[in-house]
């Protein structure tokens, strides 16, 4: 089922949670709503589910206006961050719940119901857990049960509210891959909310970055990461170095490095700012580029993070560069060493807009 939002707004008292949101989710897509807490991503998800009524705008399911449909008619599976398993029911009863509350003529009989629930438990690799109670399971197991329960009623849409937020990183990583496989096998439309940019990049086909109730950018993960359209998105997806841009005789510089030409659309004053990701800084011999001193080196698995104090930069804001482990094995930068920096890529934003 495809989902479309048209001009959705929602206020909570004085606080505008989402403002005039348009969104199109094609059938079978896996979309991430990404943003910091309070950006309105959960509100948007709850509006799609029917748990919240928008003040303005329409929700379309397959082109039909579903804005006023009650949640039970929407055929959405909703998964909460804290699982919301029914604690007084066994795992089997939890998964069977959606089938047992169907009207009598649609309700599967005993054997059918058992087969369906058992196959769902197999699907989430918890076939052995049917007789257990939620309190007897680990967090990752509980979240898989919550998913099986949501899938039991054959939803057209799966909505997940920070589904892995309460789990430790190892389990989270496994569950992400598992959910991706499940999505590819079952072809439902999924929308999930997260504040974790890595989770969004790993799992989603499309990322929608939200900030203060508005869409900042929407696109495939690679584009959102490499071609951010605003300083907010640039900062939110991954690490950045922020350096002031200086202008002299119609040319723009970061430190001594010329970065002209800078697009005309950006106001030509001293307040522009350049954002550079750590892997876009090149470390070379002292004689070339922007002189700097290595202040710290940290090996993190396959990459090495080097902190640098560049000439003319305040020392309490070191630059961060990332180089590959192989490169590091060859050159062995050490603390105190003098080096020269070059920039491979950068993006310039006007400072007034970066304040957001």
């Amino acid at each position: 089922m495809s989902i479309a939002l048209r001009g959705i707004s929602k206020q909570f008292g004085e606080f505008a949670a989402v403002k005039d949101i348009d969104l199109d989710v094609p059938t079978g897509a896996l979309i991430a709503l990404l943003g910091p807490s309070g950006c309105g991503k959960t509100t948007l998800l709850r509006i799609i589910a029917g748990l919240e009524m928008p003040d303005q705008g329409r929700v379309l399911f397959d082109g039909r206006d579903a804005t006023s449909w009650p949640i039970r008619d929407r055929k959405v599976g909703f998964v909460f961050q804290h699982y919301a398993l029914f604690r007084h029911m066994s795992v089997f009863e939890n998964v069977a719940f959606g089938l047992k509350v169907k009207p009598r003529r649609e309700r599967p009989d005993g054997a059918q119901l058992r087969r369906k629930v058992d196959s769902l438990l197999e699907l989430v690799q918890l076939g052995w857990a049917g007789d257990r109670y939620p309190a007897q399971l680990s967090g990752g197991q509980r979240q898989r049960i919550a998913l099986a329960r949501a899938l039991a009623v054959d939803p057209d849409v799966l909505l997940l509210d920070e589904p892995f937020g309460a789990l430790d990183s190892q389990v989270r990583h496994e569950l992400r891959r598992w959910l991706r496989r499940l999505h590819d096998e079952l072809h439902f439309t999924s929308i999930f909310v997260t504040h974790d940019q890595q989770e969004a990049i790993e799992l989603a086909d499309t990322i929608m970055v939200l900030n203060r109730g508005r869409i900042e950018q929407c696109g495939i993960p690679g584009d959102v990461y490499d071609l951010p359209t605003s300083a907010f998105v640039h900062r939110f997806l991954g690490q950045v170095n922020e350096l002031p841009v200086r202008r002299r005789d119609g040319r723009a510089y970061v430190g001594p490095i010329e970065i002209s030409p800078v697009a005309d659309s950006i106001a030509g004053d001293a307040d522009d700012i350049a954002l550079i990701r750590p892997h876009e800084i090149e470390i070379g011999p002292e004689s070339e580029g922007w002189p700097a001193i290595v202040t710290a080196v940290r090996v993190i698995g396959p990459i090495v993070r080097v902190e640098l104090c560049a000439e003319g930069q305040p020392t309490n804001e070191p630059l961060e560069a990332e180089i590959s482990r192989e490169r590091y094995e060859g050159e062995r930068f050490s603390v105190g060493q003098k080096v020269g920096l070059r920039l491979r890529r950068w993006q310039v934003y006007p400072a007034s807009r970066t304040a957001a």
Partner: protein
Amino acid sequence: MAAAEARGAPRRRRVGRTVLIAAALLFLGLFLLMPLLVVFIQALSRGVGTYLAAIFDPMAWAAVKLTLEVAAIAVPLNLLFGVAAAWAIAKFDFRGKSALVTLIDLPFAVSPVIAGLIFILLFGAHGWFGGVLRAHHIRVVFAVPGIVLATLFVTFPFIARELIPVMQAQGRDDEETALSLGASGWQTFWRVTLPNIRWGLMYGVLLCNARAMGEFGAVSVVSGHVRGLTNTMPLHVEILYNEYNYTAAFAVASLLALLALLTLAGKSFLEWRQPELRHAALAARDRTRRENT
């Protein structure tokens, strides 16, 4: 010097603790245990025969029956109201929510005698609705309906007050999940909400029942003290006492005291049962974790 102080400190703490515990026990003994004992000793002071005769006296028996009847009407009604109010307050946002919470607490704040007077002013012979009621030959005040109303008013907050924090702590996720799975509001309530609150609910019912049976002030104002007709147990105790019939008064009082003890036992059972469930669940989870790793 400093070292001596440091050594002295734990001992001083121990002494302090002993004094506190002793004071608490003394207080409990003086104000709770002794009166309770006095009730039973006085009741049985002229032998078991007199005690039983006092209890099975027709007037006493009528009082017991009336008390049970009133509780049997008031407690289920307040159960309905309490669950509905707690459900509304904990699971929905609406205008006037805080006003409703304050209103629920009102019977706690108002003296029971005032509560009784309110009903006299409303339904008494010269009250607002007195004329209408007389025209239809309906007696409220100085009759059973008045006693039920007064008891309802006084025990109004018990169940709602018990349930609101329980329901608020549990949040709305369970209910929202049930709805998203296609359950109706009614199915959600019976299958998800009610099982989640059952222990808190029983606790509230227990306290509500104890108060309904023991209420004196409000009931005293509206009852009219008609022996055998509008006397509840607490009122009957007072009448017997005023007639210098101490043994009979204490015999009936001992029934109320027994009720209090039963309530206490039930309350302890529920309190013991709830953490017990939690501990069992935790232990079981630890076991599964060990098996999995």
